[in-house]
């Protein structure tokens, strides 16, 4: 790669990250509801214009997806620095990122392998409860977080056989039934706190407690700033992982299984194996996100993991355009932040999202953003 190309690459990535960072900053910093609405409108017009005129895709292509991702990561870290002592904003950022990670798990299951999961919130909860129970012990907390993912994946494996023997509505029913079962189980189980839920110890890594506010170089940092950094790291790792999986032959096999089971079986692709792999990987991601989220909030109860919440996760996937990672990220941010920023719609958020999803499904069944197909021999520009 020549120095000039490396330069363009870095510049394009930096430009994209700067614009995205500024947008996020404006959205998070503003208090007035009117500004939020105007900004949203402006951003939508700008992005749509960017895509239509070809500027945005060209910038992304020039930078390369990896550089864009790194740039966005830096922008988020800078935002943490800017909002260093504003717990509310930091909490919002972390929540959106963790929901994004959970949605990435669903994305692997539904958008890649075609396995429906209407119990996303349940697996999020399994991660949270695992963190609550194990976090009290002596296990180092990073291990506890990994265990959250492992337990979610393990519990999910109970559903594997039913899911492999069914598909479509029937598979969806199994996950719905599991979600309801899980929540009822939590409500009546006294060891796990029943309807009152459990308190959690805060995240602690190498003696560093994430719950305490601290001063670094004379600047006060709210404890949530550190959770936010952890969430950024987790989100970046998850996005990179999912992208790697999708671009590898694993992703190819998953696509084949989703699109035509009979044909892929004829070509020697084991349907069962790939559905299991996708479902397990997805649940593990959801579980880790759930574990970190529970530690950050410091409290979990069955009411956080209702069927309604599972539906919100699936709607984020759908609104972002099934199979589109960038769209997924934007949808997660909007769905989580908008109700917090626009107080008047807070109460109506489920109604609003459900009507929105119905409209998308009826009017644009292919999703808001059309899914791009795989280019087997490298992209044209490269």
């Amino acid at each position, binding site marked *: 790669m020549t120095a000039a190309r490396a330069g363009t690459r870095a510049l394009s990535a930096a430009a994209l990250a700067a614009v995205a960072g500024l947008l996020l900053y404006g959205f998070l910093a503003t208090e007035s509801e009117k500004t939020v609405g105007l900004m949203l409108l402006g951003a939508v017009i700008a992005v749509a214009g960017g895509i239509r005129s070809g500027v945005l895709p060209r910038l992304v292509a020039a930078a390369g997806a990896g550089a864009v991702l790194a740039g966005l990561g830096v922008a988020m870290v800078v935002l943490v620095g800017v909002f260093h002592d504003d717990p509310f904003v930091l909490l919002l950022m972390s929540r959106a990122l963790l929901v994004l990670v959970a949605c990435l798990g669903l994305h692997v299951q539904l958008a890649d392998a075609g396995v429906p999961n209407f119990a996303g919130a349940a697996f999020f909860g399994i991660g949270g409860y695992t963190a609550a129970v194990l976090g009290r012990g002596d296990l180092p907390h990073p291990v506890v977080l990994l265990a959250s993912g492992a337990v979610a994946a393990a519990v999910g494996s109970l*559903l594997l056989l*039913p899911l492999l023997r069914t598909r*479509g*509505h*029937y598979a969806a029913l199994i996950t719905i*039934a599991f979600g309801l079962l899980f929540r009822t189980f939590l409500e009546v189980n006294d060891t796990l706190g029943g309807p009152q839920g459990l308190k959690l110890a805060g995240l602690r890594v190498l003696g560093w407690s994430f719950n305490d506010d601290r001063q670094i170089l004379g600047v006060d940092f709210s404890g949530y700033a550190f959770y936010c950094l952890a969430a950024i790291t987790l989100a970046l790792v998850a996005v990179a992982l999912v992208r790697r999986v999708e671009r590898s032959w694993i992703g190819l096999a998953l696509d084949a299984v989703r699109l035509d089971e009979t044909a892929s079986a004829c070509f020697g692709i084991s349907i069962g194996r790939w559905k299991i792999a996708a479902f397990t990987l997805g649940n593990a991601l959801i579980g880790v996100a759930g574990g970190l989220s529970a530690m950050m909030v410091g409290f979990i109860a069955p009411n956080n993991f209702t*069927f309604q919440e599972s539906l919100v996760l699936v709607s984020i996937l759908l609104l972002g355009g099934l199979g589109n990672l960038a769209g997924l990220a934007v949808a997660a941010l909007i769905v989580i932040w908008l109700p917090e920023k626009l107080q008047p719609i807070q109460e109506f958020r489920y109604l609003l999202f*459900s009507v929105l999803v119905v409209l998308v*499904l009826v009017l644009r069944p292919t999703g808001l953003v059309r899914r791009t197909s795989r280019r087997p021999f490298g992209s044209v520009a490269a």
Partner: protein
Amino acid sequence: MDLLAQYVMNGVMLGLMYALVALGFTLFFGVLDVVQFAHGDVLTAGAFAGLATYAVLVHAGLDAAVPQLVLVVLAATVSMAVLGAVLGRVLVMPLKGAPPLNVLLATLMGGTALRECIRLFYPGGSQPQRFPALLPSASWSMGRFNLRLDNVLMIAAGVVLVVGLSQVLRRTRLGLEIRAVAQDEETARTMGIDFRRVVLLTFAIGSALAAFAGVMNGLYYNEINFGSGLLLGVIGFSAAVLGGLGSFGGAVLGGFLFAGLQTLGAVALPFASAYKDVFAFAVVILLMTWKPTGLIEEQLGERV
């Protein structure tokens, strides 16, 4: 013995309610091959429509129990029949031919919208609402078995509905048309059957059944809640799938089976009765793993 009779009585009551919901799912699946997941919330809406009618009647000064009951049931079923047909028209029919998951998600979200509307716009809708006892409250005690007249009346009404529906499907022209569409849509069309009319009528009938089950649910528990339809919908769907989606007898069988499982889980098994739903759903998942197409297969079996 008398205690057993009590459990059987409660089980039959619940089973009938579930069967009514499951029949709706089976009817919809029969004519359109879709799962209409807003069905459970239609049930709730029906119960609330009945409650609102009751409030209006009381306000208007009509306090004789029998006309009240008749009007409440009538208002609930008719309004939900209309709502069901509208939902079928705007939510389900446009998605005909779309991937099954899209239809599922669209109806789930439609149901959520309905539920949220009840919660937000019905006065005090976010709290559980007391449902008036419109049926006579006489009861006879035999040992520990308490035979309540209102339960007997509800069971009788439910049985009449189920039998009546099966007769409609078997003996009337509309029933013939519904069965024809369920078996083969294209052939049915070429035979001069108005496809859209049949589908919408089926949605109306199924939703009216759900509304009836909703009123029954309210009368049985004396309380309705904006979220109660969700669970009843999932139970009804599980029952329909257990029995075999698309089969009339299967839906009834599935309904009673689920109620039986719940009762069994509540009384006969060595854990707290609060786990009865956990037990029932776990068995549903197991049964579906064992027999994915349901216990009674649709005449023309569909591979799941």
